[in-house]
C-alpha cells in the first residue's frame, strides 16, 4: 500500500494522530500538498461518505473521519496559504442561522468541505443575516452554506436569500442549505440552489454547484 493510500485509510477510519504524522512525513518526502489532499484526504473522506450512504457507517464514524481530515489539513495549511502548491476549489461561507444554535451537522459539513478541497469560512451558530452578507462579500465566496435544525428558524434562510437579491449578490453566489427540516421542496420554496441531506452529499453538491 502506498503512503498516500495509507493516509486515506487513516482519514477514513478517523485516526487523526496517525493522519497528522503521516501527512508530515509525506511533506518531508516532497509530496505536494495538492497531491496529499487529492489522493490522501479526499479519497479517505469519499470512502467514509460511501459507507455512510450504505449504512455501514453512522454519525460517530463520520465525525471522527472529518476530524482526522482536519488534523491532516492543519499540517498542510502553512503550505496551502502560500497558494502555489494547492489551489482550493472555491470559498464556502458556512453557518447556522440566527435563533438556532445547533452545530453538529454543520461542523461535520464544514470539516468535510474543507477536507474535500474547499476553503471554508465557518461563522459558527446563531449567525445574524447581516453577518452572512458581510462575510460573503469580504471573502468573495462562491458558496453560502446555511444550516438549521428547527422549522421556525429555517425561515431565516429565506430572508438571507432575499437580502442577497437586494444587495445584487444573488447571481454571484450559490446558496446551499441543510439540516433536519430541510428538503428539496423547502429548497425550491425559498429559491436556494441546492440541498443536501447529509455531509458527504453536501460535498458532492458543493462540487456540482461550482462545476
Amino acid at each position, binding site marked *: 500500500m502506498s503512503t498516500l493510500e495509507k493516509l486515506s485509510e487513516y482519514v477514513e477510519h*478517523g485516526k487523526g494522530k496517525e493522519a497528522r504524522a503521516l501527512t508530515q512525513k509525506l511533506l518531508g518526502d516532497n509530496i505536494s500538498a495538492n497531491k496529499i489532499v487529492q489522493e490522501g484526504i479526499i479519497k479517505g473522506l469519499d470512502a467514509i461518505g460511501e459507507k455512510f450512504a450504505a*449504512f455501514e*457507517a*453512522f*454519525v*460517530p*464514524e463520520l*465525525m*471522527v473521519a472529518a*476530524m482526522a481530515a482536519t488534523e491532516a489539513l492543519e499540517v498542510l495549511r502553512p503550505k496551502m496559504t502560500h497558494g502555489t502548491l494547492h489551489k482550493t476549489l472555491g470559498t464556502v461561507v458556512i453557518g447556522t442561522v*440566527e*435563533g*438556532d*444554535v445547533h*452545530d*453538529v451537522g454543520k*461542523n461535520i459539513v464544514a470539516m468535510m468541505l474543507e477536507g474535500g478541497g474547499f476553503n471554508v469560512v465557518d461563522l459558527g451558530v*446563531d449567525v445574524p443575516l447581516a453577518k452572512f452578507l458581510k462575510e460573503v462579500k469580504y471573502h468573495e465566496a462562491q458558496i453560502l452554506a446555511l444550516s438549521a435544525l*428547527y*422549522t*421556525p*428558524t429555517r*425561515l*431565516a434562510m429565506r430572508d438571507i436569500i432575499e437580502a442577497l437579491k437586494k444587495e445584487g449578490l444573488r447571481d454571484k453566489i450559490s446558496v446551499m442549505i441543510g439540516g*433536519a*427540516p430541510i*428538503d428539496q*421542496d*423547502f429548497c425550491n*420554496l425559498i429559491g436556494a440552489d441546492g440541498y443536501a*441531506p*447529509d455531509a458527504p452529499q453536501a460535498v458532492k453538491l458543493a462540487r456540482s454547484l461550482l462545476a
Partner: protein
Amino acid sequence: MKDDPIYKDRRYRINELREKNEKMTSRERTLKAINFEEPDRIPIDNWMVPEIKKRCMAYWGCENEEELLAFLGVDVRDNYGPSYVGQEFKKFDDGTVADLWGVRRKIVTYGKGTPHEGTFKEVAWSPLEHMTSVEEINAYKAWPTPDWWDYSKVKAECAYWHPEYFVLNKGDRLDRTAQLKPMMYLRGIQQTFIDLAVNPDIVECIRDHVVNYFLEYNPKVFGAGGDEIDMFMMGDDMGGQRGPLISVDMWRKYFRDAFKKYCDIAHRYGLKVMYHTCGDVYQLIPDFIENGLDCLQSLQPQATNMDIKRLKQEFGKDLSFQGGMDIQQVLPLGTPEDVKKMVQYAAENAKRGGGYIFGTSHNIQADTAMENVVALFEAYHEYGVY
C-alpha cells in the same frame, strides 16, 4: 371557557363530532388502545410549544391549558414526576441556569420581530466536555441522586386526572429517563459522537452514572404513584432524518442493557412503556420490541422508513404507536386540506385493532398557522372514529 358567540362558533365542529363519537372516558379509551383493542375513537396526545398553546387558548376562548386540553378531547395527561427539593439550580452571571445534571442552559430567541417569534432553552455549557479520563468524570461533584426529590405528591398529582384521563408519567424534557440524551447534555453532542467512535471507556462511564441514577429513581416514582400512573414514558433521540444516528451494533453494545432494565422495572410495576425518539429508527425497532418496548412515539413521517402504514404492517402486532403527524413540512407549510389528508392517512392505516394514539412528530412549532392547528384537531375527531 369564554361564552362569546365567536368562540362557540369556533368550537362547534369539534364539540359536535365529540358528542357523536365518544362513548367512553379518555382513560378507558387510551387503555384499550395500548392493549390492542378498538375503543370508540383513536385517543389523542398533544405536544405543542408554549407559543402555540397560547394561540390555541386565545382562538378557542379557553382560560387555561386544562380547559384547552379538555375541549380538544386530548386524552393523555402528563405527569412530571416528583418535586425537586435538592439544592437550588444555580443561576450564573452570563444568564445561564444549571439543571439537575449541572448542565447550563440559556434562552435563545428565534424569528425576532416576526409573527413566529419564540424561544428555546439550549445547552450553553456541558460540564464534562473537556474531561479526558474516567477518573475525572467519576470525580465530578454534581452527579445527581434520587434523594433530591420529594415523591410524596406524585400519587395525588396523578389521581387528580383520574378516573377521567389517562396519566402518562414522562418527567420533563430535562429529567426524562434516558441514556444518550443526558450524556449529550453533559458531554456535548459532538464530543459524545467522538466518544462513541473512539472512547468506549468514557461512554460506559457516563452511561453508568446516568443509568444507575434512573434505575434507583424510577422505582421510587412508580412506587409513589401506585395505581394512579397509567403508563411510563422514557425517551432518547436515536434517529436522524435518514436513519439511526448510530449503528444497531453500537446501540446493542452501549444502550440495549439499560433499555431493557428500564422496561423491566416499569413492567414490574404493571406499567406499559412508551419510548420517544425522533427520526428514523426503523433498523432498531426489532431490538426495541425484543427488549420490552410497548409503544413507540412520536413517529416522524418525514424521516425515511417511518411511514405509519409500513410500521403498522410490520410491527403492529407487537408494538403500538403514537405520532405520525408531520411538524416539519405539512403543519408549517401545508394547507388545511393537506393536514386533513395526513390525519386521514394515519387513521386509515393505523387504527385497525387499536394500538394507535394520534400525535404530532414533536411539539407543534410556532411557525404553524392556526388554521392548520384547527384542521388537525377537527380531523382527529372526524377520522379517528371506529
